[in-house]
């Protein structure tokens, strides 16, 4: 039985938990324990599409993501992991798509994200081997990019270890211990761990854990699917989105093409492999890049988008329990949002408030009070 009082226990060793721990140490917290039920990154982090963008459709997402991108730039240099600002190109096949995204582009520009509508010729300049048949235009997001989740997680974990953060893997948290509406600790496979503050950053698993504290997190776990091909020389830098098929293709650090597309799924199902995913995905990929027909598919895997009611994260303190915080429900954007989410959470943990005022719109309270802020640009 571990009997020690920590300043902070973080439940979940994914990208959100790790970045939260990183910024908490930056702000001076000392005794931090991260508890992970499997291995670091083992949930949605290592299954993600690796993209990072600010081209969203709400002020909350656009402004926070703009700051997240600044942190990605800074931390990739400091910690030494792969991050490339290669942009995103959204591809459109219908006039109404182009029209809707012209409006979104105005919103991006208003909040300082310099996206613009581009012609098929400009698309070809940025992705030279593309088949433009049927594509009438695109939206270019020049500040978007990509990173390697494995590189980021291991660079962060090594830095956290140096800073004295403890990481317990293969350990499950059973419940949160509360006394007089105040956090006392957590109960785990390895006994009780005392803590002044607890952050739940466990993806959909956060729901079950929060329940033990009497908190209802309205999350849905929706399966998504992705595959990766063998390595190829650099063909294009941006992540491409074919909006008609809700599909994306990105070339990752080692050269493989990582791609996914939205296929109809019911929430809260166990992850399983669908026989129809690779054929459907291959058809979209080969339509965009006919030469891909000869490229080998290496691996196909499913993963979850942990959806909140309005596709924005549930971030910040839980008012009912003194010392309890959550960071979950990122709705498919957890990897890209992790640096800013970690910074916001750390400010809340240490100062009781965040400098990023707009993040106050993302607490659980908005959902209880029905102040939802719907994000429309979700794909994959």
């Amino acid at each position, binding site marked *: 039985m571990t009997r020690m009082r920590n300043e902070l226990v973080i439940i979940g060793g994914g990208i959100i938990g790790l970045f939260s721990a990183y910024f908490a140490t930056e702000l001076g917290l000392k005794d931090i324990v991260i508890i992970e039920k499997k291995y670091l990154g083992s949930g949605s982090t290592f299954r993600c599409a690796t993209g990072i963008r600010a081209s969203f459709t709400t002020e909350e997402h656009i402004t926070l993501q703009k700051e997240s991108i600044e942190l990605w730039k800074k931390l990739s240099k400091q910690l030494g992991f792969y991050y490339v600002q290669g942009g995103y190109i959204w591809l459109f096949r219908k006039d109404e798509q182009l029209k809707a995204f012209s409006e979104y582009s105005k919103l991006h520009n208003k909040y300082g994200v310099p996206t613009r509508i581009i012609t098929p010729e400009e698309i070809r300049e940025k992705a030279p081997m593309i088949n433009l048949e049927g594509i009438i235009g695109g939206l270019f997001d020049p500040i978007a990019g990509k990173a390697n989740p494995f590189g980021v997680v291991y660079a962060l974990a090594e830095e956290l270890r140096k800073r004295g953060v403890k990481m317990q893997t293969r350990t499950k948290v059973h419940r949160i211990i509360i006394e007089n509406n105040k956090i006392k600790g957590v109960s785990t496979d390895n006994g009780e761990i005392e803590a002044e503050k607890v952050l739940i950053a466990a993806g959909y698993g956060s729901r079950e854990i929060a329940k033990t504290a009497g908190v209802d997190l309205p999350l849905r776990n929706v399966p998504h699917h992705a595959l990766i091909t063998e390595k190829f020389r650099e063909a294009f830098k941006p992540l491409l989105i074919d909006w008609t098929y809700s599909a994306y293709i990105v070339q990752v650090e080692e050269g493989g093409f990582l791609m996914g597309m939205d296929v109809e799924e019911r929430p809260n199902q166990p992850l399983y492999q669908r026989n129809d995913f*690779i054929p459907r995905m*291959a*058809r979209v990929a080969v339509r965009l890049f006919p030469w*891909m*027909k000869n490229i080998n598919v*290496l*691996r*196909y895997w499913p993963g979850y988008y942990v959806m909140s009611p309005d596709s924005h994260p549930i971030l910040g303190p839980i008012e009912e329990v003194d010392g309890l915080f959550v960071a979950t429900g990122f709705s498919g954007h957890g990897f890209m949002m992790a640096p800013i989410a970690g910074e916001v959470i750390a400010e809340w943990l240490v100062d009781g408030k965040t400098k990023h005022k707009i993040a106050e719109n993302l607490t659980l309270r908005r959902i209880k009070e029905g102040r939802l802020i719907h994000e429309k640009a979700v794909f994959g």
Partner: protein
Amino acid sequence: MGKEVKKNPIIICRCENVTLDDVERAIEEGYTDLESLRRKLRIGMGPCQGRTCLPLVIRILARKLRKSPDELIIPTSRPPINPIPMKLFIHGGDDEDEE
């Protein structure tokens, strides 16, 4: 991949060019489960999907941890297991735009 190049390195993973030294160093750095070793070194991420290297890595890790290979958690295998060209998923193998 290997930072120091030895004269006669022992290759464990041919697809990703990972040596025995790389594996042992990573284990010493604390990558003591197969899922993390795989992602740290990219063992089993290449075209062979771990068929060559994984049995070797299991033995090295088991010996280092003084465990039986049966006690290690084996990484998940992903379809299609063998690398398969995209076109075979689309036309059932017909290559209609080539002679």
